[in-house]
């Protein structure tokens, strides 16, 4: 995985070039004008994903992760939001594409699974008809053929008695079944990119693992690239190749999953990891939540956005954390961190925190 620099890179290779990653987002900004002021939901996000890989975007509510996903999907209303930057998918730039062409890609090349399958399925239409509609929006095949394909897909995503369920309404299915239907609907046109926006948040814990396994299995079969949006670091470890941690509309740390779990460097990531209960370790006295609340997206702090909640900003000489926005810099190869602390200091802090969490010397 590569992370491109903050600024739009000039002289980038043109469409279809081999060394361009499958999906790359360059300096994406999304701002919503509101009566209280401009809400800068996404503030300069750059990331890329190789074909067939899974990128997890992790963050709290309001960190901009969902808006990033919706911008990639083309679901951010261009009339009500200011969107700038570039989104390249397989050689095509999406943000400046005419609406009609974006519509052709939506549901065909890019598909999305949403958080709450109950509210994301139309309550008045049979699930089979909703999937058939997704097929026929993009391919001119007959209703009967589309229905056969739908049935096959419902079997494939593990819906028992699919012959009967195809004519069920969403409210007649359980939460897990509904999310399977959403997955079937998203994958029915074999999209190359699947964006899963908190696909397990609204589900029972017992069902969560099944759904993630299903996504992983289908990803293997179809060779789909997946972006997994979540606030739950617990589910990321098993499924993602890379992780981008977002805070205040920016990426604050970006690394491969193993690196991020073993050597987190940004204090925020550290805080997230320490607030997740771990089954494989002795439980610490208590979980260690990150104090304070996420910043208001209208009045972001002038310096580091995380500074008001950071325990370590006073270690930085001067008042850099209060006045200067840190850049996302490459700390180690393919490990990008946005923090004013020196790399050695960050590693030391991470080491100490892990010791405490593991119940080591206080």
């Amino acid at each position, binding site marked *: 995985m590569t992370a491109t620099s903050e600024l739009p890179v000039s002289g980038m290779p043109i469409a279809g070039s081999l060394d361009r990653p499958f999906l790359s987002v360059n300096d994406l900004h999304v701002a919503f004008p509101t009566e209280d002021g401009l809400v800068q939901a996404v503030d300069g996000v750059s990331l890329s994903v190789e074909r067939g890989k899974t990128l997890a975007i992790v963050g709290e509510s309001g960190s901009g992760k969902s808006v990033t996903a919706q911008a990639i*999907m083309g*679901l951010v209303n261009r009339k009500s939001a200011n969107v700038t930057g570039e989104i390249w998918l397989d050689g095509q730039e999406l943000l400046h594409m005419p609406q009609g062409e974006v*519509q*052709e*890609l*939506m*549901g*065909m090349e890019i*598909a*999305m699974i*949403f958080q*709450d399958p109950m*509210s*994301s*399925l*139309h*309550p*008045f239409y049979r699930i089979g008809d909703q999937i058939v*509609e*997704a097929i026929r*929006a*993009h391919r001119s095949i007959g209703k009967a053929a589309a229905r056969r394909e739908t049935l096959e897909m419902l079997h494939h995503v593990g819906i028992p008695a699919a012959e009967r369920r195809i004519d069920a*309404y969403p*409210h007649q299915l359980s939460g897990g079944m509904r999310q399977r239907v*959403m997955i079937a*609907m998203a994958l029915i046109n074999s999209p190359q990119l699947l964006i899963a926006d908190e696909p397990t948040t609204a589900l029972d814990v017992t069902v969560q693992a099944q759904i993630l396994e299903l996504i992983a299995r289908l990803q293997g079969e179809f060779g789909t690239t997946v972006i997994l949006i979540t606030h739950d670091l617990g589910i990321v470890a098993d499924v993602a190749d890379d992780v981008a941690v977002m805070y205040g509309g920016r990426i604050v740390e970006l690394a491969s999953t193993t690196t991020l779990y073993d050597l987190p460097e940004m204090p925020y990531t550290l805080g997230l990891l320490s607030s997740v209960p771990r089954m494989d370790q002795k439980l610490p006295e208590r979980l260690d939540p990150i104090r304070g609340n996420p910043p208001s997206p209208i009045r972001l702090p002038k310096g580091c956005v995380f500074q008001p909640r950071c325990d370590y900003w006073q270690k930085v000489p001067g008042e850099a954390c209060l006045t200067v926005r840190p850049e996302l810099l490459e700390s180690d190869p393919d490990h990008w961190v946005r923090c004013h602390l020196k790399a050695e200091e960050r590693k030391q802090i991470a080491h100490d925190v892990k010791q405490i969490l593991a119940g080591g010397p206080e």
Partner: protein
Amino acid sequence: MFAYLVRRVLLMLMLLFLLSVSVFLLFSILPGDPARLTCGKACTPVIIEANRHRLGLDEPPLTQYVKFVSAIFVGRTFSPDSPEPIKCDAPCLGYSFNRHEQVMSLITRAAPVTFFLAIGAFVIWIFVGLSLGIVAALNRGRLGDRLIMGISLIGYSMPAFFLGLLLVFFVIIKWQFLPFPQYISPWENPFQFFQTMLLPWILLATLYAAFYIRLTRNQVLEVLSDDYVRTARAKGLPERTVVVKHALRAGLTPIVTAAGLDLAGLLGGAIISENIFNLPGLGSLAVSSITDSDLPLITGITLLTAAIIIFANLVVDLLYAVIDPRVRVT
């Protein structure tokens, strides 16, 4: 489903029964003697007593009520002991002694006028209300939205008689685009029928469309931000399909409720429009029956209007289940 229907119809009959009892009671305790009103200036106590007997008003209220209800099913003969008994065939809703005509035939003559008036206006206001409501919702906050909402506010707050008189004054009298309304059945002279009905339709449609524009706009705005509309967009469906098939359909329930009851209300008579445009419909009939204190006619029209509204309620409830599969009629 069948059990539900049976239950609802029974409930409907019970409502009608209670209603007829209260209408009857109301008229028997009201001041004013119906028998006194039957003969005008020529009244003498003897004639009044004779008429009271002919009307059956000298009988106890319960007997009067039983006779009234049984007449609906088996017909009735008024003043059977007089030389000219009045026969009223089932379904008999009574006999208007002011007009010397059966209430039922008065109603069946007026009902088609009101029916055509209501249906025509209904079609126009639903079409205009839904389409302008959608347009306003999709342009929320922008010029188109404000223009539509502004105009609909005017339509909403304009009194019917004022707008009606404006239409009559300008279109008919001043510019003479249309002849003065003279109702004729559409089967007889479709052209004149349309000429007559055009302005009443426009008047009623304007008054009602204003409300439906607001309702539709609010409904569409509410569901447009719902998750399943986002799903529909994510499927790559054209915006038109997203708005009409997914958003509007989901917000349809309150619109259908309002439409069903409004239409039912209009079918009972559009009093102001019918009077302005000289239409011999149920509204005009109701007004003149009241000014004449024609009790049998008032009773008949009241019951008919109530029956229409109760029936419309049932239809609306059944439509819920058609629109929303989560609603189960049991």
